[in-house]
Every structure is written in C-alpha cells, then in structure tokens.
C-alpha cells in the first residue's frame, strides 16, 4: 500500500496544488493573498516558500485581471490556477469567465484552448459577512464551454483538482468551505486523478434516489440515516461534477427507485435541481412514481448569518422533503 496522509478537505486542496506545481512548470497559482499569506483559508500554505513568487503569485486586488490574465496565460499553453477568494467576489471577473474563458476554444475553432482551473470557496453556514456564503454554481453550469466541479471529500478534492488542472478545457472548481475542516480522510501522498463528470454513490438504497453535492452531502446522508430507521431506504448520489452532469448515474438511480429528491443550498429557481428533474423527465418518465422533490435554498437574497440556518436546507428539511417523495401515493 502506498503512502497516505490524513487530510482535511482544504489540506487536500493544498496537497493537490502542490503535486501539480511540482509536476508541471506551466502550473501557476495566482490570486489575492495566495502567496505570502498562504490563502485566507490556508489553501496555499507553504506553496509560496517552496515554489516562489513567480509561480504562487500575489496579485493586485482585481478579479477581472486575475481571470483575464489567466485566460491569456492559458492561451499561450500554461496551466494557470487562479483563485478568487470567495465565490461571491467572482463577479468582476464574470465578464472574463463568460465572454472569454468559456468561449476561447469555440471562438478560435480549437486553435486556442484554455487549460485553466478557476478555484473559489463557496457556500454558506459559516456565519460569514454578506457575499461570503452564496452558491451560484448554476451561473457557471449554464455557460457552455465550462466544466463545473464541486468535491465533497478530501480524497475527491485532491483527485478532481489534479484532473481539472490537467484537463484541456477550463474548469470552475468550487470548494465547499463549510466542510473545509469538518473531517479528515486518508489521501494518497502521490498525485492521482478522479475523473470529472462521474457521480459517486455515497449510500445505497431502493426507495428514493437523492441527488446532491458539496456541503449538502453530509446533512443529506444524515437525513438518509434517520429515514432508514423509519424504513425509508435512500440511495444518495454525490454528483461531484455539476457540469457535465453524470446523466447515466442519475437516470440509473432513478430507474431503480422511481422516486427522487434533489438537494442543493443554491436557490430553487433555475437551479441544478431543475436541470436534473428535466433529465429525469426526458430519460425516465415511465419509471416515475412521485413528484420529484427539490430541497433547496429559498429564492431570496442570502441573508446575514442570524437567519442562514433557516435559509440553508437542514437535515430536517431534507428529511421532510425525501419523505414527501417516498410516501407519495397517486
């Protein structure tokens, strides 16, 4: 058995970056406070000392420049890994993301490709100030030309990050900061990849298929255990990539159960749950035995933290939603 380390999710980010920086001189990490400070969440700790300020770069406070310069570097064949400190601050860079990062390959008919990975911590539940808690993955999933990856375990984080950095196309890599330090897992010391676009079955069950990702994976599993005591057996699928979705795994789990619930902390309207429900309608209508439940954030601005526990799907809300799907009788 090869060497492993017992890492948290954020340490796995750091370890993944470390492995790719070491393996490929074209990999450059860039962003605000990623260098000397080691990242506001310590996701780049020690990398500046080891690889120097030309490869682990403290940039000026300018998200559009961070993303746009990464586009230019990537067009020249480098593999930049820009970080936006919180996903809520990606919007000054949004023009670069949708107008260029997503389209360079298509626009140039393949002459230019952008092997870049834009990292950002996302999601709520940490009693943070305004704009530090949103989940806007649907924006990026909506944008053709991007891949959108959201890991939920340390092992997947390291492997998916390596796969993203090595991918020929641009990847938005969203890190669930609520679980940055929530638990540890044995992670191989050497670099490895976990394939983009493949969901993982976190729990097997025959009654309801539950689809989720990121920080919602844990409360969903918790709800599934509670429901198991009541005789409702959930299959829990951690999507891991929200664009492209693993349609095969999603449809397969639904066909076996005939009932589905989808959990995400992002708002409901035009969220990923809507897309998954549409896939099930298209691919497996005749298997459906109950309305597909969406357990999501509400369609309101993310609140200041005194109310965020009401906003986020709790294990209780997830439990109730799954029950609706499980107990529906036509």
């Amino acid at each position, binding site marked *: 058995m090869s060497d492993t380390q017992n890492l948290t999710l954020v340490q796995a980010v750091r370890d993944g970056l470390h492995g790719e920086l070491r393996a490929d001189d074209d990999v450059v990490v860039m962003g605000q406070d990623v260098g000397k400070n080691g990242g506001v969440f310590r996701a780049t700790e020690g990398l500046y000392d080891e690889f120097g300020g030309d490869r682990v770069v403290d940039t*000026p406070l300018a998200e559009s420049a961070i993303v746009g310069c990464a586009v230019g570097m990537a067009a020249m064949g480098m593999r930049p890994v820009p970080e936006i400190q919180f996903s809520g*601050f990606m919007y000054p860079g949004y023009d670069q993301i949708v107008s260029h990062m997503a389209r360079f390959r298509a626009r140039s008919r393949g002459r230019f490709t952008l092997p870049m990975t834009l990292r950002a911590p996302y999601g709520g539940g940490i009693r943070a*100030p305004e704009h530090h808690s949103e989940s806007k993955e649907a924006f990026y999933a909506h944008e053709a030309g991007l891949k959108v990856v959201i890991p939920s375990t340390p092992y997947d984080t390291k492997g998916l990050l390596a796969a993203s950095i090595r991918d020929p196309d641009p990847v938005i890599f969203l890190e669930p900061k609520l679980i940055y330090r929530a638990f540890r897992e044995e992670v191989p010391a050497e670099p490895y990849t976990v394939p983009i676009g493949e969901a993982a079955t976190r729990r097997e069950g025959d009654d309801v298929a539950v689809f989720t990702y990121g920080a919602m994976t844990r409360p969903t599993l918790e709800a599934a255990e509670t429901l198991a005591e009541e005789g409702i057996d959930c299959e829990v699928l951690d999507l891991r990539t929200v664009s492209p979705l693993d349609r095969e795994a999603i449809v397969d789990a639904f066909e076996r159960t005939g009932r589905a619930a989808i959990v995400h902390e992002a708002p409901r309207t035009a969220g990923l749950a809507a897309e998954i429900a549409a896939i099930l309608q298209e691919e497996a209508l005749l298997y459906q035995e109950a309305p597909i439940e969406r357990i999501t954030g509400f369609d309101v601005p993310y609140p200041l933290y005194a109310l965020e526990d009401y906003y986020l799907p709790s294990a209780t809300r997830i439990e109730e939603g799954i029950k609706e799907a499980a107990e529906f009788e036509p």
Partner: protein
Amino acid sequence: MNVFDRAYDDPVRVLDEDGTVVGDVPDLDEAELVGIYRDMRLARHFDGRAVSLQRQGRMGTYPPLSGQEGAQVGSATALAETDWIVPSYREHGAAFVHGLPPERTLLYWMGHGDGARPPDDVNVFPIAVPIASQVPHAVGAAWASKLRGEDDVVVCYFGDGATSEGDFHEACNVAGVFDTPTVLFCNNNQWAISVPRERQTRSATLAGKAEAYGFDGVQVDGMDPLAVYAVTEAAVEKARDPPEDRLRPTLVEAVQYRFGAHTTADDPTVYRDDDEVERWRRKDPIPRLERYLRDEGVLDDDRVDAIDAEVEERVADAIEAAESASRPEPRALFEHAYAELPPELEAQYAELTALREERGDAAFLGE
C-alpha cells in the same frame, strides 16, 4: 496655499506626530475640535469592544478600524448633514459622525439584517462588501444631486486595494466626464489583507491617479485629523461650488495604517513585521490631537475623563441595545426581496412556516 495646488507626494499636514502645528490649522471652534477628539475616542473604544465581542463569540467576523480614526472622523466632520456617505465596510467611525447609531453597526456584524438599514434621516448608504463596487454608486448618487439641481455632495470611502479594481477606474472616469460632486476618499491603510500598497500599483501615489481622469488629486496625512478635515472641507466646497477652472470631483489619498487585522479572521503577523506596526503606532491620531488640544488649553484631565465616561456609556448602551434585539423572524428572509412578495415566494415562506410548526425551530438551528 490651495490644498489642490501641490505635488501628489506632498501630503497636507497640520499636526506632526507630537501634536505640534506644522501647517494651517482649519477654522474650527473649541466645540468642533473637542467633537473630533471625542468621535475618534468613540470609534477607538467601539472598535476594541467589537473585537472583544467577536472573540467571545457574541459577534461574527468584524473588520477593525483602529488607527484609521483620524481619516474617518476628520473627513466626516467636514460634511453637512445633507451630504451623503457611501462607505465600504470599515468606516464605522465616519458613519457615527454622520448620525448612524452604533448599535446598527453592531447588529450588522452580529448578522442581523436590521443592522444594514440606516435610519431614514441618516444619509449613509448601506455597507458595500465587494471591493470598489460602491464607487460607481457614489458617482451616480452625486450625479443625481447635480441633475436635480440640489447641492448635496457625496463622499465615497474605499481602500488602497480598491484602486486596482475596474469599478474604481470606471467610476473616476465617469465622475470626470460628468463633473459630479463626488469626493473619492481613499483610506490608504497600506495593506489589502496581506498585499502591500506597493504590490497594488507602480504609481508613486494613489492621489496621482486623478491626473488620468482630469480632476484634482491630493494626498493628506490620514492620521492627522485636522489635515484630513481641511482637505475634505476644501474638496466638499469645490464639489458644491467649483471655481471655473476646476472640476468638482477630488481624489483624496489619506495615508494611514490599520493597526490591527484586516478582519477578526485575519492574522497580520503572517505577512507584516511588528517593527512596521510600531512605526505607524507613533503616528496614532488620538494622542496627537489630544496633545495639541491640551497645549491649546482646550482639553484637560477633567474633560478627557468626562469624554472617557461618555464614550464608554454610549458603547455600552449600543452593545446592550444590539444584544437585546431578538433573533430576526424568518419572515425577514422574504419580506424585502421585492416591494410585493410574489406568490411563489409566499408559497416558499408557507412551506418554511409549516415545517417550523411541525418540527420546531430547534430542528433548524441545531440547538
């Protein structure tokens, strides 16, 4: 000398580090001078208590202002009540001077939405967290004042890091093109979290960036409250009633230092030396003004003690008021999303209410 007719790297100064007069003392009466001193003390005491509340788990992440009181209080004191402040997220002291009750600021950082609503008669915009995003708002607000033939001036606060953002440059450009009555007040505290001022720009000064937009830029010792007052007063007056040969906007670079962390989530010892902090601490705006006022016979021990007591009481009252506010009702999640709640949101609220009734609040709050 007109404060605008000087080199960008020649900061306006009134008091040196020891409180000795080295420039033109602005025309302020005793009560106004004591007011500046008192408001700086209020901001400093508030700040210390806020950091302590965060440490005790009674408040969320908080951005300290200690060291920056001179720039905040000096500038806000130069405004008329009808003028507007458009803040970033660290200008608690400026907002208090302009009438914002300190308990609102506490509530905001305690995660309570009501803290984000300034009282209707206080001309302060809500806190803007995304860097530089408020600068275009300030230009737009000032533009509105001009278009409507009013003479209100808008002062916008932002940091040194903000000058790297596109929003800052776009806003400056528009301010120049439409000659809006805006004071673009840069609190250059030397550090954008861990990134030092010299890593933000190769420009020798931030004030000098005004050159590119065609209006005045001026540097001021931001830890000298009287110099800041003088510069802001001149900029506000010019914005309201410009001479023929000058545009209304001014970019003020107030050179200063944050003594503490970026926020309570930050550890500045990772990226800057204690020596540097010590050097800047010697410029502390509060003892500096106090020495001057004592020398002038405006302050003595009794008055300083009375101010201590007044400031402590105000902050204690504000903390009590903020902490006695009850947890906001979940209805507050929904009620201000639109003027009228759409049926779909009413349905989502009903869903939440039904679940609370069935399972109790503890099921949501993890209590």
